[in-house]
């Protein structure tokens, strides 16, 4: 197998750099074998070829000093590195780098939980700490705190927050809950943000902004530094928790349920980010497609309806929760029941009737921050399922949601794919996640999925929608849709990049931000 090499770098240069890196971290923590070790640094869910994202090596440092030394070496050789924390960014590229040949900087061994403060409700963690790790630590110590995790909890606080990821408790907007970080810049300088910049700081986990520009966001979805520590606020365990689900019978109910939600959400009657989940997403938790339909192309409506009936699911399935003391939850639930009860055919479900249903059970866990991996079951909807997420932001507004849904569903059907999606209603927006699922063993199907995704980016942009996050393959295309005023935002990103990382060693191309030596080549 030929070693993938970064653009403009020879095998000799790569080997020389690797030899120096081995001296820093030890041979055991440098992974070079393309057949075994590097296979798991690829993205099996890509829609092109593994080779497009194949790293040349991976290296796992154990502390900040080692990172600084590695950066010095790759600066000398101008070898690009790709930073990951827990490395589980599947649907958006997994642990794989943007281009072949990059060296993956895997921070999995920096996995200390540095502080958990029960009184003030925060944790300070290193990048390798997974949601499971933090949860287990809290349980072992008997602390009355909840975590908020992404649906698959094997990812971690630093990686997920870096991606602007989301969870399902009231603390689900992870970047909003982030407080303070430590970052190593490309030249090895270590920077603390927020209050921890003051000597003997006592308030790093409490107040986000410190004095001066609040720069934490600069290091997320970007390539301006390597985050080596992060503070995250944790929700105090509430005295009570009432999850609920509402099944809705008609496609059009998406519009009504969204419009009814906004005032409840914005006024904190519903405390977490409620989800409106389509039938297939829900069904895929317990059945596979060919149990209901073995034909090609999208599943016909008649089959969908039968499935909904068999599984007691709606065409849309709405999940939310309230938290707090009993009387407060009762009040809120009364308002919620009155509001959504007005939708014809709407049916409420609770733990007493729904427990044991796989879809319900894992949502109940997620909305209270109990880590699990159940959502991966979705991938078995079709055999050999791979997926990438198309994730446009919509207004929390019924017409807007319907417009996006209809646009995506139509194009998905035109290309022969099912619409599998959900809307996650944030503070004022909705994250619309269209899970574009394809048979990853079929080159033809992968290509079709790729073409569909590219089309959707353009279609969404034409309607005024942008994506909140994306797969490696589409970072440039989506960056180009954030183009107002002659691409002034990306010009600003590039100016910062050139200043902070003149050799372009940190994650070139991340989110469409390229160092000057590679701009225009992507």
């Amino acid at each position, binding site marked *: *197998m030929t070693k993938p090499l970064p653009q403009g770098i020879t095998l000799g240069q790569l080997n020389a750099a690797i030899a120096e890196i081995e001296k820093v971290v030890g041979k055991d923590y440098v992974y070079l*074998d393309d*057949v*075994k*070790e590097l*296979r*798991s640094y690829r993205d*099996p869910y890509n829609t092109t070829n593994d080779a497009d994202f194949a790293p040349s090596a991976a290296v796992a440092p154990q502390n900040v000093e080692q990172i600084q030394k590695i950066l010095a070496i790759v600066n000398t050789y101008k070898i690009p590195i790709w930073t990951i924390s827990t490395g*589980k960014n599947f649907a958006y590229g997994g642990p794989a780098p943007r281009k072949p040949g990059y060296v993956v900087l895997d921070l*999995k061994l920096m996995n200390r939980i540095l502080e958990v403060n029960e009184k003030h409700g925060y944790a300070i963690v290193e990048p390798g700490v997974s949601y*499971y790790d933090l949860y287990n630590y809290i349980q072992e110590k008997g602390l009355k705190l909840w975590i908020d995790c992404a649906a*698959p*909890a*094997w990812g971690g606080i630093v990686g997920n927050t870096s991606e602007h990821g989301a969870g399902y408790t009231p603390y689900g907007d992870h970047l909003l809950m982030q407080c303070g970080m430590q970052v190593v810049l490309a030249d090895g300088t270590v920077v603390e943000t927020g209050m921890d910049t003051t000597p003997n700081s006592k308030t790093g986990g409490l107040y986000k902004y410190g004095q001066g520009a609040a720069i934490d966001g600069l290091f997320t979805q970007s390539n301006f530094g390597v985050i080596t520590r992060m503070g995250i606020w944790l929700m105090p365990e509430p005295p009570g928790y009432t999850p609920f689900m509402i099944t809705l019978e008609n496609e059009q109910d998406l519009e009504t349920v969204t419009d009814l939600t906004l005032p409840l959400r914005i006024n904190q009657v519903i405390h977490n980010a409620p989800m409106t989940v389509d039938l297939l997403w829900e069904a895929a*938790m*317990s059945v*596979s497609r060919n149990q209901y339909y*073995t034909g090609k192309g999208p599943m016909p409506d008649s089959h969908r309806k039968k499935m909904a009936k068999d599984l007691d699911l709606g065409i849309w399935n709405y999940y939310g929760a309230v938290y707090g003391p009993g009387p407060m939850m009762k009040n809120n639930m009364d308002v919620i029941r009155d509001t959504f009860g007005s939708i014809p055919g709407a049916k409420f479900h609770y733990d007493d009737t729904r427990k044991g249903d*796989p879809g319900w059970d*894992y949502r109940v866990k997620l909305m209270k921050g109990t*880590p*699990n*991996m*159940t959502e*991966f*079951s*979705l*991938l*078995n909807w*079709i*055999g*050999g*399922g791979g997926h990438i997420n198309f994730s446009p932001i919509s207004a929390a507004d019924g017409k807007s949601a319907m417009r996006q849904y209809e646009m995506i569903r139509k194009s998905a059907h035109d290309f022969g794919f099912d619409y599998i999606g959900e809307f996650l209603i944030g503070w004022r927006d909705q994250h619309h996640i269209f899970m574009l699922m394809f048979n990853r*063993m079929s080159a033809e199907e992968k290509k079709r999925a790729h073409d569909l995704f590219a089309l959707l980016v353009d279609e969404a942009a034409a309607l005024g929608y942008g994506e909140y996050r994306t797969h490696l393959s589409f970072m440039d295309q989506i960056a180009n849709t954030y183009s107002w005023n002659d691409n002034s935002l990306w010009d600003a990103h590039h100016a910062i990049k050139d200043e902070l990382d003149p050799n372009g060693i940190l994650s070139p191309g991340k989110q469409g931000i390229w160092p000057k030596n590679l701009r225009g080549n992507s």
Partner: protein
Amino acid sequence: MLTRRTFIKSALASNVALLATPSHALQLALDNNQDKPLLVFADERALNAKEFISQVNDQKENLDLDIGQHFDVLTKFCKESPHGHIAGLTRDSDFFVLEQLAKDHGFYVNYSATHSYDGQTLTHEITAPKEPANLIATALKNAADQWPNWLAKNMHSLPQSHQAMITTKRQLTVPNTQQHNFLVSWSLSASQNS
């Protein structure tokens, strides 16, 4: 060893009766790892996997819908049996997740195969080092609808060395395909084993 391998290869090529007992042929051709600790995962909700796991005598785990429930078992096994071997007949997503998890303990894939049904056709698509890939493919095909049993009996003989892999496919016609789900069989072993 080499002569045996060569013999079996040529036997396969000339299609002699040797493959009437494919597991015997395999055991001759592949590394025999009977003594190595083996941890086997299966998803008993799938008929074929249920059949499979009932034949396995080693440490075994029936998988929950939430694969996260089994992380501790896998981690413990990797720590306690650094030269061991982990295998399974599971849903595709479970293999995907366990493979990722195992790599952090130095365990890597050396064999995987998808088993899919479409109409009356059963397709086995095997990815493994070249020689065992072809042997296993033929053996699975010959085992017809008994392939889960064949796998269960040959778990210890699945490839455990980390060499370049190829993918090879075999198809056969079988009745009663409706009741069967898409499954993946796989094996992981520690990198020191190679």
